[in-house]
């Protein structure tokens, strides 16, 4: 059972999936160890700041159209409210919606609260938030402070539930609980599954798409309409009412295995909504697999085959043309595991050689108990067995890798990770949007983005000539896995 509705909180990825943040080896070795159960996490005796699961949880929840966010924390944790302040409106405007309302508040816990607790204030803040904004649900986020001092959020929820007529969902995303920030997605989805989603009353023709910001909304809607289905892009820009009925959908599919696992498998376990297990829709094979597997679930295999053949005819010749210009390029990829292994496959489709890879964490399995498809596919089909580190966004490790691997180009996705390759004089392309390599057209655009990056290196070279790296030479004379403690299991 993925989602134990009896549990207040989800279990972290480390405990639930045996996910790790420390590994140094190769693609095939990692695959072997993951499959035969010998993979061990390795701790680091030095680390740089990474990020926390609360940021992940609230950065997605706060995009729900009519829900309010309350962070039971000191002021700093609510900084996510600053980041999403206008983004929610901008995203809504982009898709022509005019119903975005923002509500994101914080209990501003202070020193006194750490001694006496602050559940009374939290209760008042929940009631006041309801009075002010009349949201259709309230998400209350735990924090490191509320967790360490042992605030009883469940009692607060029980108390207010009798007073206000909307669901109050608790999000257990204390920063210290997990090193894998993607656990924050699970925390958010646990809250949605246990507090928002209702049992199905009927079946609908909606396909749940678990994604971030729905940039390919137009294309996907067109495709799905061809087969008589309606996509519902989760969870940004959705309403609580829509979310409450995702149990009625015909299927769930995701653009990111890391993101989708908990909700997709949870809906499948709890309500029998099939979760499509496939590669993600990056590049040719990913797009084929993503739609074909969906087709199988919906019984639309033939229609999808015809659609794919038609699209291939349009784009494959153009892809072949640009591929010739990319020949011989060597790349390093540094991303979360969901996007990394899909991007790597797409790069190999373009004939680009992966010479080193870094994943921020690694899930040896998803919530269905199976090894992630994109990783499994890459391990079996990659023309070379390249070195691979699981490096928890550790900049020192990443820079070390880039400096020694000297690729022609670096592919990043995470905030703050792109510029460091540039500082080394390596052109870097940030795949900031999840749909940057979506399908054949996406792959074609991606190929030209790569070509543009390696053709005009001026920005990269101008910068790299004038900056110094913040590391001592000592570091570069060590192995890049110098700080990994050997053979230590984290107990998971």
């Amino acid at each position, binding site marked *: 059972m993925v989602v134990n509705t009896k549990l207040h909180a989800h279990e972290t990825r480390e405990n639930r999936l045996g996910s790790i943040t420390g590994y140094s080896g190769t693609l095939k070795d990692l695959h072997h160890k993951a499959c035969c159960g010998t993979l061990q996490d390795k701790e680091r005796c030095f680390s740089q700041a990474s990020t926390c699961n609360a940021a992940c949880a609230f950065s997605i929840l706060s995009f729900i159209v009519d829900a309010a966010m309350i962070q039971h924390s*000191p002021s700093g944790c609510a900084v996510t409210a600053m980041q999403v302040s206008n983004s929610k409106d901008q995203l809504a405007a982009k898709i022509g919606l005019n119903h975005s309302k923002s509500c994101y508040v914080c209990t*501003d816990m202070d020193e006194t609260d750490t001694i006496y607790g602050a559940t009374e204030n939290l209760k008042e803040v929940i009631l006041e938030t309801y009075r002010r904004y009349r949201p259709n649900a309230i998400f209350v986020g735990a924090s*490191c402070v509320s967790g360490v001092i042992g605030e009883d959020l469940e009692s607060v929820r029980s108390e207010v539930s009798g007073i206000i007529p909307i669901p109050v969902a608790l999000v257990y995303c204390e920063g210290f609980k997990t090193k894998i920030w993607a656990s924050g997605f699970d925390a958010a989805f646990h809250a949605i599954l246990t507090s928002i989603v209702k049992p199905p009353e009927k079946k609908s023709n909606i396909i749940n798409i678990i994604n971030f910001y729905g940039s390919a909304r137009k294309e996907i809607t067109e495709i799905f309409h061809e087969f008589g289905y309606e996509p519902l892009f989760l969870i940004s820009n959705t309403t609580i009412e829509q979310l409450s009925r995702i149990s009625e959908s015909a299927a769930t599919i995701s653009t990111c295995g890391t993101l989708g696992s908990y909700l997709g498998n949870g809906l499948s376990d709890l309500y029998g909504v099939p979760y499509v297990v496939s590669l993600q829709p990056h590049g040719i094979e990913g797009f084929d697999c993503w739609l074909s597997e969906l087709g199988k679930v919906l019984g639309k295999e033939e229609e999808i085959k015809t659609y794919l053949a038609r699209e291939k005819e349009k784009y494959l010749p153009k892809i072949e043309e640009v591929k010739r210009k990319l020949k011989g390029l060597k790349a390093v990829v540094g991303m979360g595991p969901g996007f990394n292994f899909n991007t790597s496959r797409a790069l190999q489709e373009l004939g680009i050689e992966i010479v080193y890879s870094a994943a921020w964490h690694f899930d040896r399995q998803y919530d269905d108990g199976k090894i992630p498809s994109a990783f499994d596919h890459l391990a079996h089909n990659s023309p070379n067995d390249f070195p691979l580190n699981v490096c928890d966004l550790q900049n020192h490790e990443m820079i070390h890798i880039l400096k020694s691997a000297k690729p022609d180009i670096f592919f990043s996705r995470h905030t703050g990770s792109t510029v460091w390759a540039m500082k080394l004089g390596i052109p870097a392309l940030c795949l900031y949007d999840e749909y940057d390599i979506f399908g054949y057209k996406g792959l074609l655009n991606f190929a030209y983005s790569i070509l543009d990056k390696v053709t005009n290196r001026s920005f990269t070279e101008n910068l790299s000539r004038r900056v110094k790296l913040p590391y001592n030479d000592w570091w570069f004379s060590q192995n890049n896995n110098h700080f990994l403690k050997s053979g230590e299991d984290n107990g998971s």
Partner: protein
Amino acid sequence: MVLKIIDQPRYVCALGAMQTVQGICRAVPVLHAGPGCAAKLAGGIAGSNGDSGYISPQIYPCTNITENEIVFGGEGRLKETIENALRMIDGDLFVVLSGCTTEIVGDDIAQVVSSFEGSEKPVIYVETAGFKGTNLQGHEWIVDAIITQYLVKKPGKGRIKGLVNIWGPVPSFDPFWIGNIRELEHLIREIGLTPNTIFGENRGIEEIDRIPQAEFNLLVSPWVGLSNVKKLEEIFGTPYLHYPVLPIGAYESTRFLQVVGKFAGIDPSLVTAVIDRHEKEYYYYIERTSDVFLENRTMSRRFSTVTSTTDALAVSRFLVNDFGLIPATQFITDKPPEEYHETIRQYFRDFTYRISTDIVFSRDGYEIHEEIRRTDYHGAPLIIGSIFEKKLAEELQGNFLAISVPIKERLILNSSYVGYQGGLRLLEDIYSYVFKQFN
């Protein structure tokens, strides 16, 4: 009980002052905190203006506290992190900053840091647990730690004639911090003084080392940094000049130069010459564009600011004393300590023509917006604040400019509203919004 709620956060916790450390070239924050604190705080404060300098949050050594350190204590982990940071990172000053969890579980950070006494690169510490205060208080605590843990240990050197330390703008939290500091430097340099500042490009440990040699400290801020200049006076006997208004435009910049010139004993004729030259240039532009300032359908006559104490005061002074507008209520959102509230109120009672304005200290954006909605501005209001005021201004068919965090939707590299030039910049930006509407 009094409801404690931040609605629309406009400041962050004390640990947010890590950006103050990062603002010093080659100074390295070392965090004894959770894994997400640095990335989140930086994303919120520095976010839309970029944060990928020599040191950035991805470079900060951090203990990335997990349950293990909470149960068993994290002092060992901190020691190991500092040791490796010193070995690996090419920095001049390492500043250990603690977060909420490590302080609650009682890690003795002072003790751990003391074991690095005498290391090749100085290591100091500041307790910046998020629940202890705001990022502005954190900023003061960091400067205090630099004074009391680093500077006091340096051998004394003589005063340098004309050298002035400038304090005030807070790195990152003031989106215009670099430009503002540079413009303040520029202004005092023009009257023959030598500025010494520790933030921004090419300012680092050497500038810190020179702090005790200054003839005086110049604090340009209503309250942030006051404890620091007092501390410098106490320890090094350096007098300070507290000029509470960040000078924007001709009126305030002129007054600023006069006050600083007098305090520094500069020949008044030199100061007057500088002022005359600037005012002549400034009013060339004002004269040339006054038709546009005055002849349009949409510019406001009354305004409110929703911002930090520094910017609320600076912008109000400019709009009233320089530009002839009338202030409605000003909302101060950076949570200044209560001991300063009365003094701050006084600052807002001292405009030309005995104009004064009410101020409200609030961290509750909802209440602020309700208050603005209840106010009759007798025309379109001008609201100067953060991105949170954008929709409000649209709703009220007013004019709007975001100048404080979260600022968003504009990029600031080194722009500044300080000085004569800064006043012109501010008018450009206000009228760029005015002209988006039918005139």
